[in-house]
């Protein structure tokens, strides 16, 4: 169980770093993308868009140390709830919006797949959070390797899904 919690912690850590880095590289584009969701007033959305990558990096960094892992998982959990709310709002409004989950690194839409992905990440974050109360996370080379592998798999699944969604759009519009 400890190993599982460590792996999940490293999975979250590597994923959020992979998510935050492209956003920071194109911060202005990500700000506009956040505003495009339309769930918050424009100025507030842009401010949030500027802060979001830093929050993701902070959460990911805090996960790496046993003493701060609890705090890190709380930050990521809050972020995930926020993402779930925003994506749900977009789905209810039947809008087509770019998710911006990975900045310009990987194209993704705010759709059901994104919601499912957020659900999986939330479950992982909750597991790490609960475990952190009794047994602090202790990163190791093995847990880092497995966590990175899970991140790579999730990114691959995202790429497959995005390609599939675009192909289906083209087929339906024939």
């Amino acid at each position, binding site marked *: 169980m400890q190993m599982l919690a460590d792996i999940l912690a490293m999975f979250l850590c590597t994923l959020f770093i992979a998510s935050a880095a492209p956003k920071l590289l194109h911060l202005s584009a990500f700000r506009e993308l956040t505003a495009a969701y339309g769930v918050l007033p424009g100025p507030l959305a842009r401010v949030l868009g500027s802060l979001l990558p830093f929050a993701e990096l902070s959460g990911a960094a805090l996960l790496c140390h046993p003493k701060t892992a609890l705090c890190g998982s709380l930050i990521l959990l809050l972020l995930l709830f926020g993402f779930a709310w925003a994506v749900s709002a977009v789905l209810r409004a039947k809008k087509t919006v770019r998710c911006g989950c990975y900045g310009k690194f990987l194209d993704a839409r705010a759709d059901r797949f994104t919601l499912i992905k957020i659900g999986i990440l939330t479950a992982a974050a909750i597991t790490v959070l609960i475990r952190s109360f009794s047994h602090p996370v202790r990163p190791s080379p093995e847990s880092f390797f497995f966590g990175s592998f*899970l991140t790579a*798999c999730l990114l691959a699944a995202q790429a497959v899904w995005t390609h*599939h969604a675009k192909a289906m759009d083209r*087929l339906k519009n*024939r």
Partner: protein
Amino acid sequence: METFLLYSNILLWIVQLLVIFALVVLFRQFGEIYLNSADAISRDGIPIGDYIPEFVGEDFSTTRAVTHKDLEGRPTLLAFISPNCDACRDLIPEWNQCCLDHREKVNFVLMGVGDREKMEAFVREREIHGRIVWDRRDHFLRDFRVRVTPFAFILDEKGIVRGKGLCNGKEHIEELLGKLEDSLQTGDSQEGLR
């Protein structure tokens, strides 16, 4: 060694799940290409050159029985509609217009499928020209091999299919009527199969 085997087994399962996911989405695309493209939908229905199947329906307004024999003697545009189908609702105004334009030469017959009460509401809510035949035995879609609505056949005076396809509006109706004209001009006297 055992730990290595355990972890590599878990990793392989994760990769396997990813591969299965990729296969599922790929098959979804194949399905979309094969089943839902306009060309694919046009492959539906009774083959061109065949007689329409024997059927018994109910005239919606008079409740009298209507059979395949009632369609013989004059060319017929036979369109399948469902009350739940948005495209069927959108079709009606152009169907009515085409019916007024061509009713001297062609019978316009709508074959209603689905829920009877919804169909009654569908008919009540709008003016519909031509004849409406109700599928009281729930066999039309199966017998005519129709998968989607609105779908139409153009029949000659003998009840032989001369054209078929989606029927979303005036353009499709005119296309089907054109196929009838072509078959008459080429003197296509091929006897179909029943």
